[in-house]
């Protein structure tokens, strides 16, 4: 069980990193000018109310005690109450996560559907007109910000053609899926463009390998060569990129959810920043960091499963 030991070791290694992250978050938040209690109850509140609020938030404790309190929140995933939304942060997260996670998943699916075939085609036909056309298309989508792509897509498919809602979430599953399509497609284009370029480069490299020629010389069917020889080898480095993009997408959800008015975690985070609702900001940054660390581990595991030359240690 060498692998299991490794995974446990990696998880244990996350603890100091997470500790430092909580430290940075906590003291970063204290740098903010202004009294959070004042912000919560307003300038006109009486001194008693302010003092009571301070006590409730634990702000009258010494700084170190406050940090321990925050650490306890991080460990128990109980981040207290949101100052603006008047609800437990953890509960809010659970509600919003459905939207952001389904958005991320759908985005990944779209990105794969777009980038795999096109990237493969661009690699195989890299010195033809089709190849360079796909190539310049991908260059375009790498170089244009998501919010702009989102607005154009919204203008065409929601405002003009009216095939999709302009924004918002739905009540039924069908409505919700419908509402996710445009935002997911928007996010997918940028990711697909990057992944496509990666696949294209890998395909060109792999096609030049002797093992592909050897496979042909054995008289294998083109299908077998494409799947077992070319695509599987191409996939090894692409999987790493896809995983990296997945963590990026969590953050990118802030932009996309804002464009399409999807009430997910990104939207909540943006509103929290604008309204200075720090308990939500703290919790989001912390949770996102955990997800990123876990994704990095998962990527390494996936990598070792795909490539027998790579061992987990």
């Amino acid at each position, binding site marked *: 069980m060498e692998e299991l030991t490794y995974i446990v070791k990696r998880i244990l290694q996350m603890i100091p990193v997470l500790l430092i992250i909580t430290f940075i978050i906590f003291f970063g938040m204290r740098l903010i000018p202004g009294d959070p209690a004042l912000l919560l109850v307003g300038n006109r509140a009486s001194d008693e109310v302010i003092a009571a609020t301070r006590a409730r938030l634990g702000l009258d404790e010494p700084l170190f005690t406050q940090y321990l309190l925050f650490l306890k929140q991080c460990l128990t995933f109980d981040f207290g109450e949101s100052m603006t939304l008047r609800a437990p942060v953890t509960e809010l997260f659970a509600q919003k996560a459905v939207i952001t996670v389904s958005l991320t998943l759908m985005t990944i699916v779209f990105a794969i559907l777009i980038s795999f075939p096109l990237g493969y085609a661009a690699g195989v036909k890299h010195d033809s007109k089709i190849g360079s056309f796909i190539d310049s298309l991908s260059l375009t989508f790498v170089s244009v910000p998501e919010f702009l792509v989102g607005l154009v897509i919204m203008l065409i498919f929601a405002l003009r053609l009216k095939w999709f809602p302009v924004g918002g979430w739905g009540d039924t599953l069908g409505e919700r899926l419908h509402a996710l399509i445009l935002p997911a497609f928007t996010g997918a284009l940028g990711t697909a463009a990057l992944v496509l370029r990666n696949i294209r480069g890998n395909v060109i490299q792999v096609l030049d390998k002797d093992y592909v*020629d050897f496979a042909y010389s054995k*008289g294998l069917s083109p299908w077998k060569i494409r799947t077992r020889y070319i695509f599987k080898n191409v996939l090894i480095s692409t999987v790493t990129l896809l995983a990296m993009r997945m963590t990026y997408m969590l953050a990118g959800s802030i932009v996309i959810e804002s464009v399409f008015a999807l009430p997910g975690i990104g939207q909540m985070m943006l509103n929290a920043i604008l309204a200075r609702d720090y308990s939500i900001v703290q919790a989001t940054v912390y949770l996102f960091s955990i997800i990123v660390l876990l994704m990095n581990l998962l990527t390494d595991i996936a990598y070792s499963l795909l490539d027998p030359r790579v061992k987990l240690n």
Partner: protein
Amino acid sequence: MAEVLLEVKNLHTDFITEERTVQAVNDVSFQIRRGETFGLIGESGCGKSVTCRSLIRLVKHPGKITGGEILYQGKNLLEYSEKEMRGIRGKEIGMIFQDPMTTLNPILTIKTQLVESLKDEKMTKKEKEERALELLRLVGIPSPKERLACYPHQFSGGMRQRAMIAIALASRPRLLLADEPTTALDVTIQDQIIRLLKRLKRELDMSLVLVTHDLGVASQMCDYIAVMYAGKIMETARAEVIFERPRNPYTYGLMRSIPSIAQKGKKLYSINGAPPNLNDMPKGCPFSPRCEFCEERCKKEMPPLVQVEPGHFSRCHCAEKMEHIKGRTRPEEGGALYA
């Protein structure tokens, strides 16, 4: 004489890009008989590898076979569809490559790569596995049962080369193309692989095309030899004839640049200059700028490939002038010329 297995007639393979067309194989003809080893010899870039790849129509992009015939058992492979060609590859003509590090798929086990090469559809899965085991044994891989489940990176260089040979031989091809099969290996392992190929050829009654720049290897293995230069055959004959009586200055130059014990203490000969750029070929004989026998005529006229004695052809205006020249005797079986 044994029957002709493969005959190449006026083969042309060009590399066509937008800017220019390079003639990598230029009007090459030869034949390979059953059970015979045919050597294609020359410096890198002379077109020997491209010729070899042309035989099973696997020329790397942007190369293209533009003319000639490749007759395998009397049928022109150039007229075959891609699908028909698949029936030839592996089953009739197999191929092994130079670098065993890069010729095996790194992410598939040896077993998978062996089993997928067995093209007999009547075989059951179990029979295929049995056969895979047998193949590893055939090429001399120790404890083959455990080795079957391994990935290529768990093998040493020599073992990988053996595994590659086993895979190429899986469907018992009648002709094996070997493109520099020993170049990437250590000298001791080179020798083992040469012996292995010789044994397999005998046991399986195969013909072999051996592409090499190493005259030592060629002299140990080949029955016939064709020396190539700048996409053309310069000289061809039975191996012992070429070694004893070279009638082309290029062949002679190659031979003199092999070190040997007899010449101990003397400065090693080397041919002046480098092979011509295929984009910018000399007008006459391609070897003329480097040739010590070069005459005015050589710079202007491409010499034809002419018979200098029965079964011995040379492309040189000055072939007669070389009649007094003696080559080297062929080294004994198994002994390396460069030892």
